[in-house]
Structure formats: structure tokens, C-alpha cells
């Protein structure tokens, strides 16, 4: 009886760890946006940095 009672099905628990990690980095991401970093990133990305690719 005990063994059959233990055989009841249980649901897998949703892990909180990944959601905490993702939420933390979302906060960091939003702080970066609020400080205007995307504009700076875009300015850098549309220019060829010659020394970065080994030229000059």
C-alpha cells in the first residue's frame, strides 16, 4: 500500500534559477539603455575599426 501510494505522480518543479539570472541581466540591460549606450554601440558598429581587424 505504501509503495503504491509513493508511486503517485508528481509534477516537475519549475526551476527559479534561470529566471532570476535572466531577470537580473534584464535589469542591467535596461540600465544600459537608460544611460544611452545603444547609441554609442551603434556609432561603434557602423565604423570599420581598422586596428581591431589587424590593419593599421
Amino acid at each position, binding site marked *: 500500500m505504501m509503495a503504491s501510494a*509513493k*508511486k*503517485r*505522480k*508528481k*509534477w*516537475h*518543479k*519549475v*526551476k527559479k*534559477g*534561470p*529566471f*532570476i*539570472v*535572466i531577470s*537580473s*541581466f*534584464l*535589469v*542591467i*540591460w*535596461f*540600465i*544600459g*539603455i537608460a*544611460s*544611452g*549606450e*545603444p547609441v*554609442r*554601440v*551603434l556609432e*561603434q*558598429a*557602423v565604423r*570599420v*575599426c*581598422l*586596428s*581591431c*581587424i*589587424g*590593419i*593599421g
Partner: protein
Amino acid sequence: MESVRKWVQVVFGFLTNGYWAFPFTRNIYQGPLKVICAPGLNCYSCPAATTYCLIGSLQQLLANMRLALEGGQYYFGLYVVGSAGILGGLFGRMICGWVCPFGFIQELLNKIPSPKFGVPRPLRYGKFIILLVFVIILPAFAMDEFGAGSTWFCKYICPAGTLEAGLPMIFLQPGLRANLGYLFINKIVILVLFLGWSVVASRPFCRTACPLGAFYALFSRHKLVKLRLNRDNCTSCGACHPVCPMGVKFDESPEDQDCISCMKCMTKACRFEAIYLEIGGMPVATGSSLVRPVSVEE
């Protein structure tokens, strides 16, 4: 599953390098999509690149941090680190296995018939040293007399940048050839070494030197999508060892930092359904079935 992965690699390769007007403009893409990050290692000075490189941008922001602060701009790389962290928390090194163009190139090179060798395990810590020293510490703290740093990893190491940007740019803009010197020779040597190594060993750059892979590896325990081991089903037969392109022994270390979730062990090796894919703790697939029941016997 392996053919699906190959198609995903091809599609993402084209999505992150989708600017095919470069032979006519002879320049890189300069549109607004470049505010979005490429999940894998993909140089944003590549003429076809449509997105920015996480590692390149982080170095640029850190290298110019002092000048930015003097100008009242608080740029610490939070947007870039946040983007990388969100991707890491979702997928971890699955990105290396499924969408990174340079990883895909290494996989293709490894298909060339030749004797195959392993990569010594201690070398895998090299990528963490490169991330810490060449991507963070040197760009942030090694300044010139004007207070500006340099992009040390891109400048002295990155073989992806040499292959995807350096070589194409000297063909597109012949005037640049006059500037080639020891810096370029150094980068060509590093590129040739890694490409040659990729023929005889599986993904050597990913395993030993990739700083983006090192960053994603930090999420191996707490990523949303991951492969898991059901120890009740595992017979420790070792069938998952030889199929792993990263040299991971999945039955011994299921949360290994180098697992790129390519799923070869799950779909090609394990016959006991001991390896399964889970999302946020919920099993979703095994080697033989796409959807696994979400309940288990207690």
C-alpha cells in the same frame, strides 16, 4: 536533429551576415540593425555583418570608458553585458553549438578527412584567462597618454575578425594594403593555426580561446534550456563520450561548462533515454521522442 542544427547554423549565419550589397558599396553595413547583438562570435567589421559583436563592443566601451566619463557619459558596457547575460541565461553555450558562425566554420573544417586528435583538458581554462585579461582588464585599464584603451582581443587574437573582416576588407578596399604590417601577420598566423587545428581537432577555438564561449559557460548551471541526465536510466556505458564535439563526458559531468547542447549524445548515442532536454526544469524531449510526459513516478 543534426540536420536541423545544420540548417539553424546556416540560417543564423545568413541572418547575422545578411548585407550582400557590400561588393557594390565596398563598405560595411551601416544601418540601424547594428544596435542588435549577434549571439555568436561574428565580427561587426565584416562587410556583410548586420549586427554588432558582443565581445568587440564591450572592449570598445571599456577602452573608451575614461574619456566617456570625462564627457559626462556613463558607458560601462551594461547594455552589452545585459544582452549577453540574457542570452546566456536563456541558452548558455547552446548558442555556440547552434548559431555561432565561427563554430560552424570549425565544424565544417573538421569534416576534412585527416587523423583526429583531442584537445588537452587544461587548455580549456585558456578562454577564461582571455576573457578576463584581453576583453576586460587590458581594455579597461591599459591606457595610452590620451586616456584611451585598446581592443586587445580583437587587435591581437580574434581569428574570426581576421577571417570575416580583415581579409575581405583588404580585397574590397585595396588602398588598405599599404597599412598591412606585423599586426596583420600576427593575426594571419593565429587564424591559420586555429583553422589548421580545426581540421585535426573538434572546435579548438571554442574549447580553448573563445571569450564569448567562456562568458556563456558561466551559465552552465543556471540556463533555461539545457540537457539533463537521468541517472536512473544511465548505464555509464560511455556511448556519449566519443560523439561529443567538445570532449564532454556527459554521464560524468552533465553540467559541464563546455557542453554546447548540440544533442548528439541524446539523439545519436544514448539508447536508454538517459539524456533529455529540459526547459526551466520541465523535460521536453528525449532522444527518441520529441515530447516527454511532464510527470514522473515519485
